[in-house]
């Protein structure tokens, strides 16, 4: 049976990107054309990112990312577009996330607690 297609995030159209001219368009222009950025780079407000991906899922198999696009727009001190670059699926690295988790407090509910509903104390959980 045919795979289920799902599109995620904000995928700017090619003709929209053509309207942005390096050195001229300001942050306001970009917002009018593409809308707010999917995310702004963590340590540099002048780097805007538009991230999108398309996945295909066949029956109960792992969803397969068939297309992943990142449009990076960075602005100079005068808020004009300095760099406009695009990254595709090939640029991405298959990274396995660390399975290290910072511990948090709070008691996990035991079966008995769920059955009898008294959830005990938060401070005991630490």
């Amino acid at each position, binding site marked *: 049976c045919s795979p289920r297609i799902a599109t995620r995030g904000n995928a700017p159209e090619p003709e929209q990107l053509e309207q942005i001219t390096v050195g001229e368009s300001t942050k306001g222009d970009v917002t009018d054309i593409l809308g707010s950025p999917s*995310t702004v780079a963590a340590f540099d407000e002048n780097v805007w990112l538009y991230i999108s991906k398309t996945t295909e899922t066949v029956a109960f198999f792992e969803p397969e990312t068939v297309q992943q696009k990142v449009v990076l727009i960075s602005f100079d001190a005068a808020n004009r577009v300095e760099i406009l670059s695009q990254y595709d699926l090939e640029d991405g690295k298959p990274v396995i*996330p*660390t399975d*290290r988790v910072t511990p948090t*407090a709070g008691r996990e509910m035991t079966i008995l607690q769920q059955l009898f509903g008294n959830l005990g104390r938060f401070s005991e959980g630490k």
Partner: protein
Amino acid sequence: CSSNEAPEYIERPVSELYNGAQDLLDAKEYQKAAEAFDEVERQHPYSVWATKATLMAAYSYYQDNKYDDAINALDRFISLHPANPDVPYAYYLKALSYYEQISDVGRDQQMTQHAMEALDDVIRRFPDSKYSRDAKLKKDLTVDHLAGKEMNVGRYYQDRQEFLAAINRFKSVIEKYQTTTHVPEALARLTECYLALGLEGEAKRTAAVLGHNFPGSEYYSESYDLLVGEGGTSRTEESWWDSATKSITDLF
């Protein structure tokens, strides 16, 4: 089972009632103690004992893990006796009543929110009271807990390779919860997500911030390896066996 209709209504002198309640409290009979203190307030609302009884009733409910009743009694005490010397303790006990109901990061954090606001009340209204030091300590814990919630959702999206959603969640930890213990992990995972999207520049800059602020943390050494690529390869393909066993262990 024990008959639990309300004890029949007999008028007793206030000091006898109060001491009876105090004995019950000392005997750790919290539920009965709370009812006995309520009785004091009901029968003798104008005695000086009544004011103290409201507070003791709240403390008994708190010890009995009946947090809502404790909070109601404390609210009544605060509104009736705003100038009473015990008011700082009332605010503090109310904050504790919310604090004890905080659930783990996988669940609803509204109690954590209430606890933080109540602890803030204590710190702001009574900065030099003996309760504000512990309130500050507990407030940091609640803030750390809220950051833990953001990380929990961030990891959920990262595990499903929804990198945009994960990035925004990890970023909100770095921006809104800078003083919490979750920042190193957030920076490490942010580096991973940027790398997975092919944004080498952003990944390197985030790892640099991680290295600068948390040089000793294992998160930094892992991110460094990932970027420099020495032992990094082992972390790029996960065998089928690993992912299957991982999700089975998640079951339990």
